[in-house]
Structures are given as C-alpha cells and as structure tokens.
C-alpha cells in the first residue's frame, strides 16, 4: 500500500468501498447505544455519538460519517458536520469526562459544511470549543482518521492523546482541490496538490503528526485485532496518572 501515489491515496480514502464509520462502530463496540442531539439546536446526522463497550471497557464514541447512498449523503452533507454536530460531539465528550469514560473519535470528513446557516450558527465557534474544551478533557482520548481528514473540521475531533490513520486515509490543511485552486488558480491540478500537501499517513507519521498507521479493514472483516489494539492503547493511557496524561497531551501539541 505504501507504494501508492499521493493522489491514489486520495482516491482510496474517498472510495465508497471504504469501511464506514457506522460499520467500524458496530465492529468495535458492543452494546452500542446511540445518543442524539446537541441539547440546543438540533441533531446533525453527519455526526454519530453514543456509549458502549470496547472489549469490557465502557467508552464514549463520536464519529463523523459520510452516507452510503444519495439520500444519506444529502442528510449528512457528504460527511461535513454543521455546528450542531460539533456541539453534539463536545456534549458527549464532556459527559464521558464526567463518568470517567475514555473517548474514541472517528473522523471521516472533507471538512465542516460550508453554507450560510453553518456560518449563522457559528461553525467557527463550535470548532473552537471542540479544541479548547475537548483537548482538556481529563480522560484518555484517541482519534482515528478513517478516510478523509480535511481542515479545521477534522482537527476539531483529532486532538487527543494519540492520533492514528488508516492506510487508505489522508489528513491535510485543505482538500487537494481547494489547495490547487488557491495556490495555482487551477483546480484541475489535484495530483500535484496531493503531492504538495504531504497528506499520506506515511509522511504524517514521519513528521510526528500521527502516532501510528492502522491496517486497512474492509466491510465484513473481523475487527478483533483492531479492537485489541485500541483496548491496549486505552489501557496504557488509563494507567497514567491524570496529570501525567494531561502533561503528555500538552507536550504532544506544544511541539508543533
């Protein structure tokens, strides 16, 4: 897989055949119970959240998800959350802290939803809160970039103790299309943009943006190895005194 070009990686990350956020949740979490709404304005379908168990451990899961068909994609804005989605995620993450549950965040988004209502409802403020409050939650917090990790809409839920990426995933400051149009006024130069953005898991691992690359799973695969891997990671973090956990998280981001 490592011999894919950056652009091939972009295509693979966006492939409709990729395992969805929902499939990952059902394969990883037993007794998952979905919790809806931001307690203020609405229930953004692009963000799923809930509680369940990872092996034996109670856990809170939040995830940004694309749809599997046109109807779902329209409801979920192709995986682009509205402010209500980020506020729902943050609400559930704060609840996780209250009950000392670790947090797993699954990210698959080209970016936050860019429309007029999202602006009116404070999309910038919602992401800013995820960063300011979410980053300081005193429970273990792991993020996985599942497919696309685009821009501020991705980092909002990708600022935990550890950040992992699937083999076929990308993480960048902007989509390659957006980059090409801003830098070269030519949105057709997507391949060059993908290279320039250095958005592959290999590169991001090398530069310390992420901590590990996760083997790619497909629909129907047994997720037991991934489940065990994540349970181990959470255990390592749980064994740290909370102040040490917070110190390490702080240092992780202070170095950038």
């Amino acid at each position, binding site marked *: 897989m490592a011999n894919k070009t950056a652009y091939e990686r972009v295509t693979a990350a966006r492939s409709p055949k990729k395992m969805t956020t929902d499939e990952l949740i059902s394969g990883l979490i037993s007794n998952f119970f979905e919790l809806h709404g931001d307690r203020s304005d609405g229930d953004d379908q692009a963000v799923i959240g809930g509680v369940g168990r990872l092996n034996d451990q109670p856990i809170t899961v939040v995830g940004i998800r694309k749809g599997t068909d046109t109807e779902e994609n329209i409801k979920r804005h192709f995986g682009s959350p509205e402010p209500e989605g980020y506020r729902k995620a943050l609400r559930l993450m704060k609840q996780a802290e209250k009950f000392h549950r670790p947090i797993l965040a699954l990210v698959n988004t080209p970016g936050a939803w860019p429309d*007029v209502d999202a*602006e009116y409802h404070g999309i910038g403020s919602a*992401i800013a*809160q995820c*960063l300011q409050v979410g*980053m300081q939650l005193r429970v273990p917090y792991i993020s996985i970039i599942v497919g696309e990790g685009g821009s501020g809409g991705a980092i909002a839920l990708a600022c935990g103790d550890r950040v992992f990426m699937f083999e076929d995933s990308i*993480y*960048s*400051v902007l989509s390659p299309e957006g980059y090409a149009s801003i830098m070269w006024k030519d949105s057709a130069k997507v391949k060059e943009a993908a290279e320039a953005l250095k958005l592959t898991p290999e590169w*991001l691992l090398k530069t310390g943006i992420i901590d590990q690359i996760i083997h790619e799973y497909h629909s129907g695969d047994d997720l037991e190895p991934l489940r065990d891997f994540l349970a181990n990671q959470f255990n390592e973090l749980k064994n740290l005194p909370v102040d040490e956990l917070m110190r390490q998280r702080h240092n992780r981001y202070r170095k950038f």
Partner: protein
Amino acid sequence: MLQSRFKMPSREELKKRMDNIPDNIMKECPVCHSTFFSMRAGKQRTCPNCGFGFRITAKRRAKITFDSFEELDSDVTVPKQYTDEKYMAKVAKAKKVTGIKESVLTGIGTLAKMKVAVGIMDPFFVMGSLGSATGEKIVRLFERATRDQLPVVMFTASGGARMQEGINSLMQMAKVSQAVEAHSKAGLFYLVVLCDPTTGGVTASFAMQGDIILAESHALVGFAGRRVIEQTIMKQPPKDFQRAETVIQHGFIDAIVPRSDMKKTLTNLLSLHTKENANGE
C-alpha cells in the same frame, strides 16, 4: 549657483519620501463607497463617512491603541524547513511592508497604567495567515501572560491557515487553543477584538475563545470563504452574511466597537477585570 539652490536630495532622503507617499491620494470606503482624500482617514485610518476601520499594520495598531508597547519575540520567523522560492519571496515582501517577521506582533502594552499581554495580527503579512511561527508567538504570549498573571488582548485579522505550511498550520489551532485554555484556567482575562478580516482556522480557534469578543465595525468575520460557500449552495450568499453586524445578531460577538472608541473600551473592560476589582478569592 543654480546647483546649490536646487540641491539634489540624497538617495536615502528620496527613498524616505517615497515611503511617505500614500498608495492612493484618494480612498474609497469598501463599506459605504464614499470617496475622500486619504489624509482624511487620519491616524486611525477610518472612513470619515461611516467609521469603517481600514486594514492597518500591526505596528500602527499598537501605536494608536496602547500608551506604551514593548515587543516580544521579534525574531521569531518562518522556520528554515520551508524553502519554496515563491513562498520565501512572499515572506520577504511581507517583512518589508509590515516591519515584523511573522503575521502577529506580540508584546506587553500598557493602558491607563494597566499591563496587558498584546497580540496583533497583521493582515498585510501573507494575509495574516496562521503560520507555525505565528502560532509559536501567540503561545509564548499566553504562556508569559499565564506566568505573569496578565490579561491578554488579541486583535485578529487573518485569511486563515497558511497553505504553504500545510498540516503544520492546522496544528497551530490545537497548539494555541491549549495555551488559551491554560490561561483561562488560571482565572485570567482574555479579550478578543475581531478585525477585518477574521476567517478560517483563526475564527475556528483563538478568535472565538475570548471571555469577551469584540469586533470592529463592519469587520468580515466567518469560517468558510465566500466562494466556497457559493459553490456549495450554488447561489450568492446574502451580501453581509459574514459582517460583524450580522454575526452579532447570531450571538457570537459581545459588542461592536468603532476604532475611535477602542482605546476607551479596552481600558474600561480591562479595569473591570483587575485583581483589585475581584470579589473574595
């Protein structure tokens, strides 16, 4: 004889005069579209008709806002790892225009004898974009303010992420956010002034994290770019949908303050948050 009466000015003198010539003798206000002699914009650079504050350099803003200002970390600049020629040329030009080495000017200012940690973003430095060194300077400012128990006043003006620095620009959002939160947890006051334009990753982080968020009149404040939104909804967004006057109606700004009142307003709000005025513990 003639020569001595019309002495050629020195090269330096000529250059100095050049620098003092405003770009345009006439100015047009982008908000009310009135035209006027540039001089009438005054030291504060505001529209004499509607009060709109034109974009100004960070250095000028420091001068017109604070009684005194002592710069910090003036040598922190774009890291050496970035070598792209076009980018370096942009940075070199920005340094010349703004007189600073990154898109934010940081320092310790005073207002009515109150000491305050100050950050001022410069819209003329690569569009005020959030580079790694921008983030670094802001974090150091918050760390210093936390250590010395100072309030922070931050003037934001930014086109958002620094594309040329890729994912490292994105990481600054997280890096700065945790410094803001540490300052907040220490019980210290953080005041934001949203200036024209505040967008993208700056809006989605420290611009929206203030205890009090002010905006200059008519400042553009938003997350996504107008063009991106236009392409998404396939029609023109409302004309002023990202103006401070609209954003305040949706509840994300505490007050809009014209530039001419800024100094007075900051002084008042800072004095309300001094230790002497706190009740009990």
